[in-house]
């Protein structure tokens, strides 16, 4: 390495130039401002409640993941017919955040965004920066299928709550996801195993499964949040919706509730009694789920996307179905069939878009029953409106999910803190990984999680939300 002679003077000069240019250069990142142009509306009518201008172009950017974007393209064809002459600019992409972040900053976002997948935009941050249109007027508009029913009244429970940030409804979720424990129906029938309703029954079942040489459970150890889910569901079974609210609202000692600790003990017991497939703690979701599909383990926690995800590796006749997480005791405050369910596939209408009215109208159409039915048929997933699966043939997996959602009724569990506070989510999941591998005790787990929640509550740099 040859040494360069840099004099003190030239060094200082360079530093001065750098210092002077910082404010000017920095303007590049955040110079967009929130002063986008107002989009121009046309005349309103009962079939055009937002007054979309017929020939206004519409830009739709959607995440193209497991569900594809064919259902969106189909809806765009209908929109084009409705508003003759309008040009639709459709983009099906991955990495929505990387692509659209600069456009939001510059005040030039598209009219409709499906913000899903890894590397998506932070919706809470968008809301705080007033980048998203409040969709209340969409909820109160007549639904596409029946003008006498408002859009609001066509939705499954929780969809509006899921999309509400700080009091305004900005995120309209298209799919409905339920979480539970998955097993192969024929495997259980062959062995005469019944799906357990309570945790003691689950432990008995595990003992029976173990005797056959199959590991009772496995889990996606590389991503411990999969195991957090049954833990939280069992906790809420015991503590009821009040506990859920206390946890979501970061109330002091919310995690010290006895049913939270009991749930942690139950999860630790699974591993303590050797019911978990050895090595699970290091497996990715692909590896754990493949082992489960190969019959090396009988039960795995996951959500309703599992069937689609496993399509290429599921053997014929495996017929996976979802069972509800059992309650810890018979004194559950919720129905024994209460499950964790929430909506996903977030649709947004940026408030600085050039055709906000068009964006709203497009979503009104996309959330119609026909479009939803096409979606359910094509991708085998529950959409977020009621009755969208009626009259279509469903796989055993999808019908087990639809049935579970129906059985749970209003007792669907949906924790908000995991959406609002990603730092707390990470702390909980890290601790769950330690709990399952028995490197910490259930009591230590409670202490750790409570401390993380307390630290978060004290942190003034993070915006707090309230669940009502």
């Amino acid at each position, binding site marked *: 390495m040859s040494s360069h002679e840099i004099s003190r003077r030239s060094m200082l000069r360079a530093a001065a130039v750098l210092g002077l240019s910082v404010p000017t250069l920095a303007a590049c*990142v955040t110079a967009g401002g929130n002063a986008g142009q107002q989009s121009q509306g046309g005349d309103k009518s009962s079939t055009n409640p937002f007054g979309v201008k017929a020939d206004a172009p519409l830009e739709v950017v959607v995440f193209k993941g497991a569900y594809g974007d064919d259902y969106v393209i189909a809806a765009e064809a209908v929109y084009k017919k409705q508003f003759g002459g309008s040009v639709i600019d459709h983009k099906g992409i991955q990495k929505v955040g990387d692509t659209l972040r600069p456009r939001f900053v510059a005040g030039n976002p598209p009219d409709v965004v499906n913000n899903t997948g890894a590397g998506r935009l932070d919706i809470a*941050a968008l809301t705080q*920066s007033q980048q998203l249109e409040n969709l209340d007027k969409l909820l109160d508009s007549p639904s596409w299928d029946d003008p006498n029913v408002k859009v609001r009244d066509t939705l499954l429970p929780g969809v509006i709550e899921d999309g509400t940030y700080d009091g305004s409804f900005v995120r309209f979720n298209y799919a409905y996801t339920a979480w539970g424990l998955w097993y192969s129906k024929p495997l259980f029938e062959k062995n005469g195993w019944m799906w357990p309703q309570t945790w003691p029954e689950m432990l008995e079942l595990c003992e029976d499964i173990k005797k056959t040489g199959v590991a009772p459970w496995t889990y996606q150890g*590389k*991503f411990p949040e999969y195991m957090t889910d049954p833990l939280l569901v069992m906790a809420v079974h015991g503590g009821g919706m009040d506990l859920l609210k206390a946890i979501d609202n970061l109330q002091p000692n919310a995690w010290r509730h006895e049913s939270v600790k009991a749930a942690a003990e139950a999860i630790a017991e699974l591993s303590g009694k050797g019911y978990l497939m050895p090595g699970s703690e*290091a497996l990715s979701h692909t590896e754990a789920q493949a082992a489960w599909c190969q019959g090396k383990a009988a039960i795995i926690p996951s959500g309703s996307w599992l069937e689609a995800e496993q399509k290429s590796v599921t053997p014929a006749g495996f017929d996976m179905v979802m069972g509800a997480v059992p309650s810890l005791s018979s004194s559950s405050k919720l129905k024994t069939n209460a499950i964790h369910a929430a909506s996903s596939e977030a649709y947004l209408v940026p408030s600085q878009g050039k055709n906000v009215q068009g964006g709203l109208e497009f979503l009104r159409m996309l959330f119609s029953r026909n479009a939803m039915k096409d979606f359910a048929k094509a991708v085998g997933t529950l959409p977020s409106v009621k009755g969208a699966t009626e009259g279509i043939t469903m796989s055993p997996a999808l019908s087990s999910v639809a049935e579970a959602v129906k059985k749970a009724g209003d007792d669907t569990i949906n924790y908000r803190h995991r959406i609002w506070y990603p730092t707390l989510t990470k702390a909980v999941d890290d601790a769950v*990984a*330690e709990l399952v591998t028995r490197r910490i005790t259930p009591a230590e787990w409670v202490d750790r999680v409570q401390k993380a929640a307390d630290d978060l509550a004290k942190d003034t740099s993070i915006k707090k939300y309230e669940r009502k």
Partner: protein
Amino acid sequence: MSVLTRPVERAAAPAPPAPSQRRRLNRGYGFVIGALAPALVLHLIFIVSPYAQAFYLSLTDWNGVAGKANFVGFDNFARLAGDSLFLDAIKNNLLLLLLMPAATIGIGLFLATMIQRGGANGRSGVKGARFYEIVFFFPQMLSVAIVAVLWGFAYNPNNGLINGVLRAIGLDGLARSWLAEPGLALFAVMAVMIWSGVGFYMVLFSAAIDAIPKEIFEAALIDGSTGWTTFRRITLPLLRDNVQVAFVYLGMVALDAFALVQIMTVGPGGPDGSTEVMGLSLYRTAFEYGKFGYASAMGVALFFGTLVFALVALRGNKNRTELA
């Protein structure tokens, strides 16, 4: 690079009459400036400007999507000092810095010496040196993402290559859940870094040894020097500059390590923060937590850490060259 082949621009205004010597000087500067300007402009736009913006953003609470950012002074840096996960990350990066470059250079030197002078007579390389040279270089040709995925498979506790081999030779007791045990995970990642780096430095050192005049080695042999003494007294001192450069490069790799950790480890960054590195904290803070201001502060801290390391490493070099 087409910019570099653009015709050299002359000074726009006709030069006023001046002493001929002065004009010649001016013309010389014009050429130098014309040649440097395109590269300098690109450097300013793509290197200096992002750095400057990051420095500014580290003093704000920018969330990544807002059109404006509020100035918060040094709050972000004050938070860094109390962020236990980030402190874990610093600790892990330092451990990588302490062990990984030394191990990579050590193995690289050993292999290079074997390839150049490892033969029985001490004058040539081991048999098949050429073959080993190519084989050991293979990992260098794989992208880091592929390396991470492949090693992820190898570390699989149930059907991975490593536990498979251990069990096949009857060492079942040594089979581990490599990436899921807090005490092992970082070393498992480090092993992959060393594996993928050794080939390149072996080739680098091998070429450097090749450049040492043969007479020196010949003289040592005649004097009855052993292989180890030759290495310690002749090869190593003459490779000092190469080793120094390798150390700087590897140090920067050790202070990064983001891609391997992100793809391979539990969590990622786990179990329980045991493989957390600064780059991963930064990425998560920006792209998952939406705190770009705070993430920029992490980036600035990492920048100064790397700068200090590079200065210290190069300063050592200068002193020793003076001694020599």
